[in-house]
């Protein structure tokens, strides 16, 4: 490829507080290509692109665009130069319409009356051209994730971008929606635009990208065209030498999973017709029935927002089912308060660690005993034994490789990955019959993900059960014994490991009923 690069980032450096996020990273983009930016969490992919988009300020390095030096002070400069970015967490105003979200920040034809007919027509036209149909007058909060992503891409296209950056765009999409997205991306580059595709999923880059750059711990590792690439090269590039790939669960393609479960005794967890409605009477879970055996790793798949959080909170006692029963080891635990369940029955890794699991204003020790503070050995009568707590916490910091100054370090000083380690250390610090883990590996780098998978697989040996709720279908297929699919608060199918099929699960995730799935399979 002897084309001239339209965009060149050279020797970019970025330091947050004292941690070096990017260390002399370079990146180039050719016109009309989809360029994959691959790496584990914390590799610096998003940081690099946030610098290009003007959200972060670089500490050093240069950016050339069309051969000219580019000085980007903020997103406005990036947009004016034709650079657009779709963030992993959509940056949308929930109570605005699609139309208002898209025109926000641009000069509209009638700024004094806000008659937006011309703008609406342009959006519909763009949607048709790039296969991204949306209703301009829909309120964003009411839309499903897949549609909101289309809005986000249209926002960039509406501004006439030349370079489109997509940050982990496949999170929360079903396999079918991922295929549709990839098709749209092809249409977009065929019209002459260039795309930067940030992801940690190897298979996706091999599937859709023309060229691939791998980052690790804030450094360039390699940059190859798809023709030159092979899976092994990328695996090695992503994890480096610190990890033994042969022994890892992450790269094992599921061969480490072991479906032996204890069928003889009472199930560790049994859901009987569990339903939950909000105060306003909106049904979030309806008629859930399933059992988790001792020693079983039971997965729950689904697009985010289909009742996963409510399921996790019903099992952990945070909310009480409005109907049905929950049994543990044959005993009814439906209305038991959380603090009782945490005594040996349940441990919990919540999905939204910052809001549901972490005390940023308290120190690491206070965080690690949350929920267990009324249990031995942490307390004696009404007093907390801080010396014992600190000893235990120091052990946990070592075992779970939490980067911190010690038990009395304020939680707010920890990075996202380290907060997740605290969540995991807490959940594993006391024995439990059932571990409820909701997106437990979000924000972790590959070796840490591997560590968590090993921990969960270890639980099987002791006969402890795990309920793994995850938005990452690959993760579920990797280690679970069975996977249930949650759609609009209902379980629409439970598959055994031998029947695992990504597209079949994907169809269930998008609400196509199990029978139809069977029909489709028979027909093909």
């Amino acid at each position: 490829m002897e084309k001239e690069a339209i965009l060149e980032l050279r020797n970019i450096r970025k330091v947050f507080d004292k941690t070096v996020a990017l260390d002399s990273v370079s990146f180039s983009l050719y016109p009309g290509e989809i360029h994959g930016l691959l790496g584990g969490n914390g590799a610096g992919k998003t940081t690099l692109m946030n610098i290009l988009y003007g959200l972060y300020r670089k500490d050093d390095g240069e950016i050339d665009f069309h051969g000219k030096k580019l000085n980007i002070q903020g997103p406005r400069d990036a947009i004016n130069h034709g650079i657009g970015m779709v963030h992993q967490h959509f940056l949308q105003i929930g109570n605005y319409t699609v139309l208002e979200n898209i025109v926000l920040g641009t000069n509209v034809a009638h700024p004094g009356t806000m008659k937006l007919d011309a703008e609406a027509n342009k959006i519909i036209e763009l949607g048709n051209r790039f296969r991204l149909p949306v209703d301009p007058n829909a309120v964003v909060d009411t839309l499903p994730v897949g549609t909101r992503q289309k809005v986000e891409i249209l926002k960039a296209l509406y501004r006439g971008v030349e370079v489109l950056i997509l940050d982990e765009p496949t999170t929360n999409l079903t396999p079918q929606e991922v295929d549709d997205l990839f098709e749209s991306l092809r249409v977009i580059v065929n019209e002459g635009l260039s795309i930067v595709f940030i992801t940690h999923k190897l298979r996706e880059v091999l599937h859709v990208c023309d060229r691939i750059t791998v980052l690790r711990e804030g450094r360039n590792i390699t940059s190859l065209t798809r023709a030159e690439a092979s899976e092994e090269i990328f695996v090695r590039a992503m994890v480096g030498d610190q990890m033994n790939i042969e022994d890892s669960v992450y790269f094992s393609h599921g061969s480490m999973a072991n479906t032996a479960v204890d069928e003889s005794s009472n199930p560790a967890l049994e859901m009987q017709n569990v339903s939950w409605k909000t105060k306003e009477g909106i049904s979030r879970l309806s008629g859930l029935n399933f059992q988790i055996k001792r020693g079983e790793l039971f997965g729950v798949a689904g697009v985010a927002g289909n009742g996963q959080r409510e399921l996790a909170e019903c099992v952990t006692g945070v909310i009480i089912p409005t109907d049905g029963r929950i049994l543990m080891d044959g005993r009814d635990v439906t209305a038991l308060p959380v603090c009782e369940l945490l005594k040996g029955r349940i441990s919990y890794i919540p999905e939204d660690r910052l809001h549901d699991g972490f005390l940023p204003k308290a120190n690491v020790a206070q965080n690690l005993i949350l929920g267990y503070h009324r249990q031995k050995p942490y307390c004696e009568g009404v007093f907390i034994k801080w010396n014992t707590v600190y000893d235990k916490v120091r052990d946990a910091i070592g075992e779970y490789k939490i980067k911190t100054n010690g038990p009395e370090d304020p939680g707010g000083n920890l990075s996202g990955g380290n907060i997740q380690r605290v969540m995991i250390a807490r959940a594993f610090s006391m024995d439990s019959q059932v571990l409820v883990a909701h997106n437990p590996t979000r924000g972790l780098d590959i070796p840490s993900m591997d560590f968590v998978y090993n921990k969960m697989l270890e639980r099987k040996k002791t006969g402890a059960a795990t309920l793994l709720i995850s938005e990452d279908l690959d993760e579920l297929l990797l280690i679970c014994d069975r996977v249930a699919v949650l759609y609009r608060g209902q379980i629409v199918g439970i598959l055994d490991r031998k029947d695992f099929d990504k597209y079949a699960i994907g169809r269930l995730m998008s609400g196509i009923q199990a029978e139809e799935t069977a029909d489709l399979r028979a027909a093909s």
Partner: protein
Amino acid sequence: MTIVRKIAPYVIAIIASFAAAGIFIALTGANIFQAYETILFTSFRTPNGFVQTLLKFIPLTLQALAFTIPLTAGKFNMGGEGQMIVGAIAASAVGIVGADLPAFILLPLVILAGVAAGALWGLIPAYLLYKFNINEILTSMLLNFVSFQIIDLVATGPWRDPVAGHPTTVQIGQGGFLPMLIKNPPLNAGLILALLVAAAVYLYTSRTTGGYELVATGANPRAAAVFGINVKRMFVFSIVLAGGIAGLSGVIEVAGVQHRLIVGLQHNFLVLGVIIALIARGNNLAVPFVAFFIAILEIGASAMQRTMNVPIEMVFIVEALVLLFVLLSDVVRRR
């Protein structure tokens, strides 16, 4: 080393605020250094000055704790003034009605009534928060204005002391007086009560499981709830406890200092209490020390107004500036 680093921002803040106030004092034509000297040393020049300072210290400490305890749970009690007034009213009511009772019965009743009344007054915003999820800052603040009318009502009612020019009730029974630690200048046992309360609050929040739950609730109520802490109960408990402590400060004003109910006994204690609590950054251990410092400034301010004709508000501005500069030191440290 760490203690130096902790205290340094306070020292800088104090110097900076005094410097800023110096400009104003100079504008009034007064001698700046004489003014500084009066503000800082009046408390230590005479025994009376020192006792006056301690008498200020008592309500200031209690008012500040009435703010820091809910703050630990992440809630703001702006009703310390109202809780104090209602506590004082209840204490005087019991003291007047039971005027003939012997001390060993009347005094406990007076204290109990005042504390209970303050706690009940705190229960109103707490309950509205619990039941209707109404912001406690507004309700507790608005209830202060209601309490101003109640105290006026009581002090101008049947118990009014006809001799006094200012709305005031008659004296409570002798049995309801707090014992004196020193006769002359008079220092009452309220000092011991305040110190005991401060120590108990510190022990509770830093060492007990209940205190841990209070801290966890304040650090992130949602996470605390997910992990089994009944945060709504912690909110209610913290505000009611604060109300009780503020009520106690009212009791001490009545049973220890004035021996009667006087309209306006709350002075500026709420605002000063909040300033103290925020300068102490919500740390219960630091509260008594900061309260003592503010008490010195307050006594100095009155002396300055008397002897030098410099308005007392000058010192109030200094106190607010100290708070602002202490808060600013956080920003400096972040950089």
